[in-house]
């Protein structure tokens, strides 16, 4: 495990319990999505994992080191892009990266190469001598990502990296994160409100609510185990006629028709097999050929909403 927490908890001085008994498990090379509604405890967790605040209970290990005990060692291993990340607008992009390169104690002889390499990677090399004040939001976010990588970290923490970016900007950041993960084997810990980010990028996800962990699993398993509903796409020889007969089947909650198929949402996830059999039998008895029945995957948004809305604070799954 490159990151592991054991009963990690944080209660602020005003008595607010931001994080409660959190147990996370992140392997090296993972792109780990950390989801939760506003105020769920995501940023507090990142701050505990990066040594910025102390947990009131439990332990966090990063690269097998206790974060509370080896704070300065861990800071050299990690890169962090905080949610509300500011810049010195009077500096140029190059000066900004140089500043942080030096603060991390980088080798002065390698500074220029490393900074230019990162500026090139985030497509800012041509604007490296412009003042940050003149950068667009997307450019600033890419510069922030370059700063996150300035110390060649093993792990990067990205708190809402695509917040406020247009779709093209979001796409650029996605590509960059995937490339970093693949080419440099960097473990990525990412929080995002945009569930599309998580779906595109992550192989493993944790969802928290009110500081409690609701679930931690791979995206494949989440789709298998926590889909709020079963949706099937049915292609038949006669879509219009099929709809007429499907209406009579109990257990179908909703039907949506397209030109050459019908999508049915089943009422009860536990009786999927039974309802599917009923559908096939009904259509067969009415001389309608069934060409294909495929399951439509639930989106992360469906799973997230299902888990968050149906959970109680005492419910903890793993």
């Amino acid at each position, binding site marked *: 495990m490159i990151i592991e927490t054991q009963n990690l908890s944080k209660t602020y001085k005003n008595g607010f319990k931001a994080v409660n008994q959190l147990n996370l498990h992140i392997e090296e090379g993972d792109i780990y999505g950390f989801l939760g509604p506003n105020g769920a405890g995501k940023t507090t967790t990142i701050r505990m994992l*990066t040594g910025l*605040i102390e947990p009131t209970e439990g332990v966090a290990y990063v690269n097998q080191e206790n974060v509370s005990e080896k704070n300065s060692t861990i800071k*050299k291993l990690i890169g962090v892009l905080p949610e*509300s*990340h500011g810049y010195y607008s009077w500096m140029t992009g190059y000066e900004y990266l140089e500043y942080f390169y030096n*603060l991390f104690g980088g080798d002065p002889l390698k500074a220029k190469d490393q900074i230019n390499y990162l500026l090139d990677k985030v497509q800012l090399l041509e604007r490296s001598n412009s003042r940050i004040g003149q950068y667009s939001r997307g450019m600033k976010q890419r510069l922030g990502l370059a*700063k996150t990588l300035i110390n060649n970290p093993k792990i990067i923490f990205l708190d809402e990296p695509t917040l406020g970016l247009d779709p093209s900007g979001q796409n650029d950041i996605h590509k960059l994160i995937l490339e970093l993960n693949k080419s440099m084997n960097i473990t990525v810990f990412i929080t995002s409100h945009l569930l599309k980010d998580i779906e595109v990028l992550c192989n493993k996800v944790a969802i928290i609510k009110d500081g409690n962990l609701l679930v931690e699993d791979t995206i494949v398993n989440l789709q298998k185990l926590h889909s709020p509903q079963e949706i099937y796409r049915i292609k038949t020889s006669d879509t219009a006629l099929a709809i007429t007969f499907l209406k009579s089947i109990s257990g179908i909650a909703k039907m949506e028709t397209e030109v050459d198929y019908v999508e049915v949402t089943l009422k009860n996830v536990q009786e999927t097999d039974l309802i599917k059999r009923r559908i096939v039998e009904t259509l067969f008895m009415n001389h309608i050929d069934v060409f294909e029945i495929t399951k439509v995957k639930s989106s992360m948004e469906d799973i997230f909403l299902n888990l968050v809305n149906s959970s109680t604070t005492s419910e903890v799954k793993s």
Partner: protein
Amino acid sequence: MNQFLINKEIKENIFATKGILWLFVSSLMLSGLSLGFISIKELSLMAQNEILVTVGKVILGIALLITIILGSVSISNEREQATLESLLLTPNSASSIAFGKLIGILFIWLLVFVTSIPYIYVLSYGTGLFLSTSVLIGILGSVLVIIFSGISIAYSIFLKSSKNAIIVSILTLLITSIPIFLSTTMKKAGFGKLIDSVSPVSNVMNLLKEVIVKRADFISLIHYFIPLVIYVVAAILFLKFAVSKLNFEGGE
């Protein structure tokens, strides 16, 4: 302490518009004052060493005002522009960040001091007081800047808002400057005497007068230096205490 933190502070203080503006304003004030001493009949009749004391007070006043403003916005500005978290996530301690800012402010004072040297030279011409006045203003200015910028940076950490930190720092300066506004008689006994002897600003102004006007030697003025040394130590301890509270325990 990380030299790159200090370099950045110096660069930010000097090359930003505010830095140039500070130097321009201080030069303008000293030029106006010098012109007044030469061209206004009543002022030109003042003894030259009295003029030097007045100029010394103005130089120290300008330095204090600049440094407490820079100190007050130092950490709170990092917090407000959301750069503090990134700084604290580097391997540098919060203490080196805060003391880096203190050194950056001392550098601005050095510039103000260097700018004022030609004025001291002109106004002390023929008195033989140029060197002692310059050295004294340099030392006392550095002491006051360390005390007040240390306190202001600490306020900047505690109060989190630049505006509030500036207000509280200016109030602190005003309170410690009360003895300056008291008459000589009031300062001779009772409460007036007490606050005159404990105020760092008052001790510095008395030292200026004793050395430049009365030409007393440094050794005989040791009782003025002791409170100043105590204030320097106290300001540094106060700043260290504030630094220990520099975290995100209370959120943003």
